[in-house]
């Protein structure tokens, strides 16, 4: 396998995809949204409980999708726990930029840094961004998003 491909399917990614964190429904969710990727049939449901000042208390996702989508959702859930909505929004756009731009100066500790390699595969970028777009949709109080 080439280096490029190993970059995408690196150890962290495969581990998250095999055992996703925060997987499942959330009783008492205040916000939920579904996201689809019509290209491959990936589907992500994001559940949140947000308190009145907009902080994310709990998060979970139900993802049927490829390794990239699954691990992106898993890492996202890890990262946004306890953020307020402004911070979550900011993170969304940071991640989005990282996954779609050419720049390489992303801090090493940054969530999804390990998914950077996906940029070499334009058709797969949407797999990584879908959970984040669905998160945005959920935070806005909407229920459906698609990647096309």
């Amino acid at each position: 396998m080439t280096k490029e491909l190993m970059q995408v399917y690196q150890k962290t990614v495969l581990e998250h995809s095999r055992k996703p964190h925060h997987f499942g429904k959330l009783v008492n969710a205040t916000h939920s949204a579904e996201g689809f990727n019509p290209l491959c049939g990936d589907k992500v449901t994001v559940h949140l409980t947000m308190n009145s000042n907009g902080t994310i208390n709990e998060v979970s996702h139900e993802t049927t999708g490829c390794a990239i989508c699954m691990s992106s959702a898993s890492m996202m859930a890890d990262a946004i726990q306890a953020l307020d909505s402004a911070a979550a929004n900011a993170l969304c756009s940071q991640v989005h930029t990282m996954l779609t731009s050419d720049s390489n100066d992303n801090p090493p500790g940054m969530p999804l840094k390990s998914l950077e390699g996906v940029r070499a595969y334009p058709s797969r970028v949407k797999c990584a961004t879908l959970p984040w777009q669905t998160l945005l949709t959920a935070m806005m109080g909407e229920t459906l998003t698609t990647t096309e």
Partner: protein
Amino acid sequence: MNSPLFNIDSIRAEFPILQQQVNGHRLAFLDNAASSQRPDAVIDAVSDYYRNDHANVHRGVHHLSHRATDAYEGAREKIRAFINARSIREIVFTSGTTESINLLANSLGQTMQAGDEVIVSRMEHHSNIIPWKLLAERIGIVIKVAPINEQGELVLDELAKLFSKKTKLLAISHVSNALGTINPVADIVALAKQQDVLVLLDGAQAIPHGKVDVQAIDCDFYAFSSHKMCGPTGVGVLYARESLLENMPLFMGGGEMVIAVSFEKTIYNDLPYRFEAGTPPIAQAIGLGAAIDYLEGIGMDKIAAYEHHLLELATTALSDIEGLRIIGTAAKKAAVISFVFDDIHPHDLGTVLDHQGVAIRTGHHCANPVMDFFGVPGTARASLAFYNDAEDIEQLVKALRVAVDMFR
């Protein structure tokens, strides 16, 4: 008019079809309003695509599918820029002007009821009449017809009187294929906006001949065909204002236009895909993109200026022929000249001209109401493109003189 800015000889050299002899004569192709010809750049873009990049679009993860999707969506962006639409979400690929108009009639038709009115004009092509007549038959809408005058111009005062509370759409050609008339579309749109009426422009004959800016015109819908603007057959465009398209009922159903389907529930795709059912005309859209590159390489303004020069040349030359009457003498005209002789039928003219290598169209040009208005069964029509030259016009005039001698 060979100038460093517009070198007609080198342009002609790029059109392989023009290099042939017909009936032992140089080909003077003057039937461009029916369908234009293609430069090598367009023909090669299509072949190269098939040779190197073809796969179905949007649904594949492999390289060819990517390249095909990028090329196809790249063509959409070229079209957006060409007509200055706000977003590619406003650019729907269809099979041609006719399908674009039918899409609209079918979709808007689902929101209309008996008694609702659609205004068209007397100078429309059948493609902008029949879809509305079908709606009239199916659901009882009423078609009102804006009149034209003896020059073949729309009578704006009369058009203004046709609006009523029940008027849902004004559907009108930007340029008439039978008469050459260029309608004052921005004024017409302004008129309609005052009445809160949507406007569709049939741009089939306008788009090949000058810069079209849908935002400047401010129309709601704009339809055109690739094959009349140096692109492949089999593809066309419906431009539609996004805010309208967003809420329009669907036309056809199939792959591409849905996200998820069960027998209970369907989730439809985003714009513009919701209106593009099935595998699209991929190679043709890419060829249309190449045609746009080619036209812009020359410059739409230069094309318009050169064609206007040809029109004046041809109009003067034809007016010299005894008994020839030009049908369509609007102040603003595209390079289309319809003409008749009282004593020679257009069809006979066509044959005699063809014999001398001159290709014109004869008949009703899919515009029967225009023919009825002028009281002729049909006309002979010479329609010019930027790859025509003064020699084509000389050849036309010479051939006409032969025909006149023969039939008189």
